[in-house]
């Protein structure tokens, strides 16, 4: 790496940081040049976020050296970082929903006139308009944040970073909630920024994106520096090997051909404004994909099957028997499980432990006369923790302290403990690292081998291609195709997904 052009904007030398005896960063190095997109990769817990937090001044390093624009940089805090031109687009977008786009961009730096504290709105709206125009984003500066889509909010965050005259922009999983079209727009903006000499630190788990956008890749593992390579020299397997420390032979395990009876049928399912006339059968032991663009109605269909929303019209059959499912409680009783796309919103309960979270859907199985048999409960949770290889500090650790992948596994464990025959996975690998992803794929295969039927919703086409036996494609709430076998390809899915 030292051979690359001189004068890096940011140079990190043997940086270390411990949290209560755990080394989060161990002698890590990192070199960032102007005008490059530098991917920072590693599994969750590898130390990426700690490194970024230190760069943003949110944490202080125990030892090591940071040189910014040729000068040693000490005693940093967030204001200092922003002033020097380092901005971060967080994975969890931090905005004030009731304020407008412009007010959010200039939050904390409001212009005043006439009197101290008297807001000069005019000037921030003009500035915001100009910023958005430069980015090529068609957004109203006066629109309230709460009416914006995730992608639009992200654009606002980028605009905010640029408004700080950022020389370094850190993007933490920026595409996790974006549609393909929006990703394309983001990449265009990244390229423009790059051309202007801005350095981008790009954190992502998605291999395709790295290949597409990154110039350089640095990999961390368990808080240690593994290596830095030009992106062009890396293939997927090498990269995975660097991150995981071992080879993963094939990301998607082989499927067995066992198909059973039709276990779930949806007939003419409609809910006005969400989806219309949905028809499909799901067989025991198969993975049925539900593909489509964002907003195509995939999650809405899943929620209706699971009883989270009511189905306005149409019928649901379970094992050829017509049923009405009015609540998740009934769905679980009928053998349906649902792993939500939104772990924080619909899965984890703040403060609740791994054990208690995991047994929440099946608690009645470990009770005698309403009293919980602590031993039974612990046994079930600990078996599931072992089966799913969940990494915890113990069953009493709060779920929210776990990494994304392990949180997801706990939530899957919760679903499995209720012994479902049908499991709906909604974006099961969103925001989790490659190792955990692979394990979840293997798990889905194991479940189908046991005769469980899986309905898989995913925005990542490779996932759909690699796992599904058949695919239902939705477009704007309508079912446009049911593909199977050879028909399943990236092109046919996309073609049907954008079909009007």
């Amino acid at each position: 790496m030292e051979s690359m052009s001189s004068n890096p904007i940011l140079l990190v030398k043997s940086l270390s940081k411990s949290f209560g005896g755990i080394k989060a960063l161990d002698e890590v190095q990192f070199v960032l040049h102007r005008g490059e997109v530098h991917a920072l990769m590693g599994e969750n817990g590898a130390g990426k976020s700690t490194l970024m937090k230190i760069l943003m001044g949110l944490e202080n390093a125990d030892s090591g050296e940071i040189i910014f624009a040729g000068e040693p940089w000490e005693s940093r805090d967030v204001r200092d970082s922003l002033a020097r031109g380092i901005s971060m687009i967080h994975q969890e977008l931090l905005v004030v929903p009731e304020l407008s786009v412009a007010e959010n961009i200039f939050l904390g730096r409001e212009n005043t006139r006439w009197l101290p504290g008297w807001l000069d709105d005019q000037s921030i709206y003009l500035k915001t308009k100009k910023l958005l125009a430069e980015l090529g984003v068609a957004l109203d500066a006066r629109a309230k944040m709460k009416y914006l889509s995730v992608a639009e909010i992200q654009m606002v965050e980028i605009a905010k970073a640029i408004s700080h005259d950022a020389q370094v922009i850190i993007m933490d999983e920026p595409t996790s909630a974006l549609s393909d079209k929006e990703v394309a727009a983001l990449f265009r903006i990244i390229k423009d920024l790059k051309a202007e000499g801005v350095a981008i630190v790009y954190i992502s788990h998605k291999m395709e994106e790295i290949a597409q956008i990154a110039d350089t890749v640095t990999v961390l593992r368990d808080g240690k520096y593994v290596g830095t390579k030009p992106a062009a020299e890396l293939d997927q397997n090498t990269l995975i090997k660097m991150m995981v420390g071992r080879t993963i032979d094939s990301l998607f395990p082989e499927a067995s051909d066992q198909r059973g009876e039709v276990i779930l049928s949806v007939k003419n399912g409609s809910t006005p404004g969400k989806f219309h006339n949905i028809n499909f059968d799901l067989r025991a032991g198969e993975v049925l994909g539900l593909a489509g663009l964002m907003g195509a109605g995939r999650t809405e269909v899943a929620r209706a099957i699971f009883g989270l929303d009511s189905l306005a019209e149409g019928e649901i059959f379970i094992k050829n028997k017509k049923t009405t499912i009015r609540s998740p409680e009934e769905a679980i009783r009928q053998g349906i499980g649902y792993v939500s796309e939104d772990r924080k919103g619909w899965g984890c309960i703040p403060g609740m432990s791994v054990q208690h979270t995991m047994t929440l859907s099946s608690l009645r199985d470990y009770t005698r006369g309403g009293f919980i048999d602590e031993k039974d409960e612990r046994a079930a949770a600990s078996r599931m923790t072992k089966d799913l290889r969940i990494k915890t500090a113990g069953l009493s650790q709060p779920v929210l302290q776990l990494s994304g992948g392990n949180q997801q596994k706990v939530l899957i464990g919760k679903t499995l403990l209720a012994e479902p025959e049908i499991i709906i996975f909604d974006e099961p690998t969103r925001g989790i690292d490659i190792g955990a992803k692979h394990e979840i794929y293997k798990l889905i295969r194991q479940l189908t081998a046991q005769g469980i039927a899986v309905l898989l919703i995913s925005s990542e086409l490779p996932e759909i291609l690699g796992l599904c036996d058949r695919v239902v494609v939705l477009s704007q709430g309508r079912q446009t195709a049911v593909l199977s076998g050879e028909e399943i390809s990236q092109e046919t899915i996309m073609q049907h997904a954008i079909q009007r």
Partner: protein
Amino acid sequence: MKETFASTITQAKNTYQTRVHSLGVFGILLAFVVICAALALTTPRFLTVSNLTIILTQVSINALLAFGVTFVIITGGIDLSLGSMVAVTGVSAALFAHPDTYPLMVPLGIALAAGVAMGGFNGLVITKSKVPPFIVTLGTMTIGRGLALILSKGRPISNLSDAFNFMGGGQVFGIPFPIVILVVIFALCSILLRKTIWGRYMYAVGGNEQAARASGISVAKVKMLVYALSGALAALAGIVLTSRITTGQPNAGQGFELDAIAAAIIGGTSTSGGSGTMTGTLIGALLIGVISNGLDLLNVTSYYQEVVMGVIIIGAVVLDGLNRKG
């Protein structure tokens, strides 16, 4: 990898269970002990068996209400109708508690039924209408006050049977009966919260209602349960109060809800829901009782009492907060 993992395990102790169940209560327990010690040093009459008995008796009513509201707050709700429910249930009990009319079970049963009905009404409106609990129970607070006045025709109901008056004034082996009720109910509430499926569901509903629903928990049933429980415990408090003052007072219990909520919050129950313990609430109620008793013993003027009480409440919660962080 393995080393990191092992060292994480060594930290396992410092987690949820221990933090919620002992450390969380620790801050407030410390404040309680400090205040008791200070009172014991300033007035020799504080640390006597008879004074401690009196404190426990006085605390019992607030503690009963606080247990009920702890359930409610854990599910992320609030119950402002406690004081009014005390009045309604107390008056209904008194109406049927005149000597030589009905057996003791009748006034007790009627009061409990009235409490459960009012609490159930709260729960029903909250779950069916999605109106915030604050508003609904604010409404029932006023309705309840009116009902108490209607039932009693605006006048206190006295001349109650000895059996009924035993509930608040009697003794078992020298222990005032309200203390017996307090201890039994505390044990039952703790078990319900810690050992049963319903207690677990309360934490889940308060921690993340959506996640609880998606886990197959009937959120409406849990909410109905906590508000009905709150009503039942208010009825018990109403019975003890009515029996203690040997009169059914339509204007009894005004402002009781605030003391009960204060006890729960001092005891570490989070107003945003999802956490709290009965032990904490009990200590919270004891703290309030001890302060009020101690200030009376020290003959502090009522004007200052109010200020001191407020300062101590804030202080206890701040101390608890610091303890949790550190």
